[in-house]
């Protein structure tokens, strides 16, 4: 790829402001996160509140990739691979994140996410508070409330998909709109 212009134009046409595919780390959150906050929050048409909302979803999505992606460069690798895309379409920001998961985890994830997608703001708030005080799930590596946090901040119901790769693996994508 010696000429990235068309690739870049393609992203631009889809309203994409930022796109990262590769190994994720805490430093990525800190570094790219600050750039996003500057890009959205500062300047003439800067919106500080939107910048923080987009940033907060970005943090939760990258943390999910770090904690749950099953794609690593070798067995004991600290680096998890995934993709995060931030864009703006029809006046709304969207943040999409994706990573490889085990196909047998889909049922549980799907049950959890479809429940969140059906909840209204008040229900999400009650559920968030309940889970925040609860003992965390065995499968959770963080506080276990990242998805609820995202759903709570989203202006539309959360959107997600699972794409089958092979018998063992699938690709999971989640999209949040603000």
């Amino acid at each position, binding site marked *: 790829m010696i000429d990235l212009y068309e690739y870049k134009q393609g992203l631009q046409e889809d309203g994409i402001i930022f796109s990262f595919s590769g190994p994720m780390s*805490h430093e990525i*959150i*800190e570094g790219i996160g*600050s750039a996003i906050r500057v890009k959205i929050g500062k300047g003439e048409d800067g919106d*500080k*509140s939107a910048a*923080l*909302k987009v*940033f*907060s979803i970005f*943090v*939760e999505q990258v*943390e999910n990739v770090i904690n749950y992606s099953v794609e690593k460069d070798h067995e004991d690798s600290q680096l998890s691979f995934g993709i995060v895309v931030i864009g703006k379409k029809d006046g709304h920001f969207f943040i999409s994140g994706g990573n490889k998961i085990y196909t047998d985890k889909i049922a549980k994830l799907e049950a959890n996410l479809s429940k969140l997608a059906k909840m209204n703001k008040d229900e999400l*708030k009650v559920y*968030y*508070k309940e889970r*925040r*005080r609860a003992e965390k799930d065995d499968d959770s590596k*963080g*506080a276990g*409330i*990242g998805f*609820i*946090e995202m759903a709570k*901040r989203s202006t539309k119901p959360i959107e997600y998909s699972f794409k089958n790769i092979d018998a063992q693996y699938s690709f999971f994508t989640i999209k949040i709109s603000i």
Partner: protein
Amino acid sequence: MENLHIEATKSSPQINFNAQTNIQSISGESYPENTTSFYENVFKWLEEYMNIVKEQEIIFNLELIYFNSSSSKVLMDLFDMLEEFSEDGKNITVNWIYDEDNDASLEYGEEFAEDIESLTFNLIQK
């Protein structure tokens, strides 16, 4: 007892806990790489401090610009702990300080306030 001071980093807040003035502050951003290990010393210090402090007024000033969901859980644990000490007779006030143009911070402060019963919890616009 010794005071606890932790410098802020890009993803972790400044901690200033003072056993002489009884004013404890947490300020900045909170999305550390390992939330549990970052807050371990904070909780350890507070447990010791609450054992020696008597009827003096204790003030917690929390001024967080952003915190992730893991930190939100830790903050809830912190308020639950302070509420228990408050029920045991400690004189504790929590000030949740937020910036005017940070509506998420106000919203999250209000939600913590709703979950707290006996602890004095003030929402203060900066």
